[in-house]
Structures are given as C-alpha cells and as structure tokens.
C-alpha cells in the first residue's frame, strides 16, 4: 500500500502537472488574498469606530478560504484524474492486479498519495492567513475551524475524483465527471426549500465551518462522502476485474 502511494506521489511530482497546478493555485489565491487585504485596510479606520464590527479574520481570512475551496475544486480533479485512468490505458493496472495486494489496499494507496499532495496544497493555502500573525492578532479558533473545513473539502474532492478516475480509461472524462458532481454538490442548494437537497450541499456545510461552527453533522458529512466514494471505487474495481 505504501509502495503504491510513494510511486504515485513520485509520478505526480515527476510530471509538470502537479507543479503547474500548485503555481497557478498559489498565484490565484495570492491575488485574492492581497485584494481582500487591501479592501480591509481601506475600511479599517471606519470599522474601528463601530463596536462589535468584524475583524481581519472575518473580512480577509474567511473570504480567502471560501474562494480557495472553489479554486481547489477546479484543480483537484486534474490531479486525481490519472490515478486509475492512466493505469488502465498504460496497461500497468495488470501489474497491480497480479501482485499480492488487495483491491482495498490499491485504492487506499492511491488515495493516500493524493491526500499527501492535497496536504501540501492545503499547507500552502494555510500559510497565507497565518502570515497575518506577523502583524496582527487573528481569531485562531475560527481560522482553525475554516482550515479544518478546507482540509475536509479537499479530502472529499480527492475521493470523488478517484472514483471517477476508476470508471474510465480517459483522464479527461474522469476530470469532467468529477467537476460535474462537485459543482452540482456546490450549487445543489440553489433550489432552496427542500431540506434533502440542502443537506447534500457542500457549500452550506463548508460555510458552517468557516463561521467557526464545528458540528459533528458537518464533519460526518464530509467523512461520509469520502467513505462512499472510496467504497464505490473498490466495488467498481472488483467489478471491472470480473468483466474484463
């Protein structure tokens, strides 16, 4: 399992894709961060006069994490799309299948590699708000709740991407399908009213965490999403093995 994870991580970093994506992400987020910060500095004198006004955490960090979740949603499928598709099309999946490794371990190994890469992305994102600590005080509780939310969202993106990658030989199709589902989960609450759809929306859950509200229901939602996607992947691979 660890061997698969290390090999995958290595392959990801050997291709320019991971580096390119990290650079693009960093550029976009840094721009958003600076814009938010500038806006905050402009209105800061007026805010100081209002008692109970939102501070730097609420006005800079939370919007940043909010957009980071969307930007990363666009990038993660590009990282996960090759996980299985490339193994299928390169014929290397037979090597894994003929090795004494169970299907569960293959999937977990792949997911672990993806998680490690996502952890790097998460850390890079977290560094930006943390850099504010040099000059000011932050609401650390709210920040850590937000970062926890971002981490959970990334884990869910990765698991969904992994599942779609196991469905097809073509990485691009896997990426598009992952976008489809993730975007749908973001906007599914637009219809409003119906409670079931509201329950399914990523955005609502994520915003709870950004507001500093850590509930087991929200955390459970993300973990359930990860677990479902991984179980479906394992099932799908076992199925594929039977049909050829």
């Amino acid at each position, binding site marked *: 399992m660890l061997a698969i994870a290390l090999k995958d991580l290595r*392959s990801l970093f*050997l291709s320019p894709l991971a580096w390119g994506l990290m650079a693009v992400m960093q550029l976009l987020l840094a721009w958003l961060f600076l814009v938010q910060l500038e806006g905050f500095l402009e209105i800061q004198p007026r805010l100081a006069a209002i008692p109970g006004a939102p501070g730097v955490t609420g006005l800079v960090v939370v919007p940043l994490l909010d957009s980071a979740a969307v930007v990363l949603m666009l990038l993660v499928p590009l990282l996960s799309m090759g996980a299985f598709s490339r193994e299928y099309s*390169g*014929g290397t999946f037979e*090597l*894994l299948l*003929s090795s004494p490794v169970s299907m569960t371990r293959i999937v977990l190994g792949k997911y672990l590699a993806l998680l490690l890469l996502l952890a790097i992305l998460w850390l890079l994102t977290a560094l930006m708000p943390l850099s504010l600590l040099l000059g000011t005080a932050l609401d650390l509780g709210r920040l850590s709740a937000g970062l926890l939310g971002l981490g959970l969202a990334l884990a869910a993106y990765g698991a969904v991407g992994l599942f779609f990658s196991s469905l097809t030989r073509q990485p691009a199709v896997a990426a598009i399908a992952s976008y489809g589902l993730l975007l749908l989960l973001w906007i599914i609450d637009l219809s409003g009213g119906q409670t079931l759809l509201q329950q399914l929306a990523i955005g609502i859950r994520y915003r709870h965490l950004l507001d500093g509200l850590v509930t087991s229901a929200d955390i459970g939602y993300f973990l359930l999403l990860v677990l479902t996607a991984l179980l479906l992947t394992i099932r799908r691979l076992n199925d594929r093995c039977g049909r*050829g």
Partner: protein
Amino acid sequence: MNLLLEIKNIHHWYGDFHAVDGVSLSLDRGQVLGLLGPNGAGKSTTMRILCGALAATGGSIRLQGLEMARHPLATRRLLGYLPETPPLYANLTVDEYLLFCARLRRVGRHQRGSAMSRAKSRCGLERTGRRLIGNLSKGYQQRVGIAQAIIHEPALVVLDEPTSGLDPNQIREIRDLIRDLGNDHGVLLSTHILPEVEMVCDRVCIMNQGKLVFSESLGQLQQAAAGLLIRLQQPPDIESLAELPGVSAVDALGNRRFRLTLAADADNGVIAERIIRHGWILDELIPQQLALEQTFVRLTSGSAAA
C-alpha cells in the same frame, strides 16, 4: 511429478462472447509450456485469468495446491506475469520501477538489492538502471517487463508473447533465459512463433475458439505423426505398397513418388528392407515429421472454416 499448476475447466464470457470455453491444463515444476493459437483464440484471456487480472466465470485454478479463488493474495505471490503490453511506467527509471515491483511483490527489505541485480543481470539490463523507461527502445522495455515478472523468484512465470518486438539476437537471449527459468520455475508462455515453441518448450497446448484442442509433450508430437516420402525406380501398384508393415495409408504423388503414412509402431528400417527385397529399387527415402506447424494448421484452420 511435482504438480505446480492445475487449471480445471475454466470459462470466461465477455458479454455474449464465450472467450474461454472449459480449458483444463496442468504444469509441473521445471516445465515450459507453450500456449499456441490464432489471434482471438483466448490465450491472453486464459493468462489474465491465471494471473488474477480477470475473474473466471467458472472453473478452478490451483497453484501449488492452493485454490486461487480462496487465497488470491497467497497465490499471486507465487506468480510473475508479463502481459501482452509490458506494464511499465514511462516516467520512472528502470531501478525505480524494479524497486517498486519488488516492494509490490513483497520482497523483503534486505533481499531487494540482490533481487534487483539478479533480475537485471538475467535480462541484460545491468547498464540501463538509471535510464528512464520511456526513453528505452521497445526491446529493452520488453526486457524490463520480463525482469519485473521474475524479480520475486516466483514459482510460476507467465509470459504473454515475450519475444514480440525484439531483434533476432535479443530473441535468442530471451529464449535462453526462458529455458534457464524452466530449470527451477514453471513457465507458461504464449506465442505466435512456432519454431520458438519447438526450441524452448517441453509441452505444447493449442487453443482455438476458446477451447483447448491439443495438449501433448513436444517429444510425443515429433514421434507420433511421422510419415515417409519415397521414390522408386520400379514402383508396384499402390495396394502392394499399402501392405508393407506399419504403413497405414499411401498417396501417389506422381513421377514414381509416394507418401507413406505410418502407424505408431512403424519401423523405417524394416520398410526400406522390404522395398529392396521386393526389387522395387529404392531411389529416395525421406522421413517426414508432421511438424508443429502442420498440427497447428490442421487443428485451427479446420474449425475456423466450419
């Protein structure tokens, strides 16, 4: 004998297509078995089932007495598999790739180094360790594929067309390697190249349309289906030729030539002696072996037309 692999009555369906139809095989340790057949005969499917890359629709496979369906991990540890297209990662170097395979196949931490250098020297890869697999020629990639299959010293090595894409020298080296592997491992290989089978294999199985139509040791094959081509200066009528001991059929080929089809207990020396004693004056006597190729064509083209 030391039974290594026993396949009993396996089936596989791709949708409506019956790709493997009740194949049974067995293989002893130290044997090289050649699996032949036209394209689409089900060879690769059989091999994929054997290696766990595909689940059989029915039937059972036992490797060293272990039932494959019940002990998937334990049996996979005993085999090394080279698929039709070698399963290589183009962006890794040969060393990185072989190390990955060794870890994947559960080679112990301390044996990995020696396992890698042994596999590399067997496949002639000593000097390519640091090169990227994607930059190697097809022949070398094929060698890396074979190295991958033998790195963990499996009891059974399954090679799907191991010599495709190699130059004649490399083919000879790989054949030597296969024969060498056959000394202490069981080897199952599929190929289109019939002389290759005659050179390296102990046993031949021929598949056609998903069925096993022929399974014989190579020695038996060469003995069994023999014939004689003769030319006589004063030929008698065909009936008297057919009365010669051990002759089961006679074909006149014109120009005083005849082909004698022989029964299993025929003796060429006795036949020659009778011909001379009858005074038919023997000009030529050419022993003919019904070579593998003829067997192959007879078994596979007939049913393809049907």
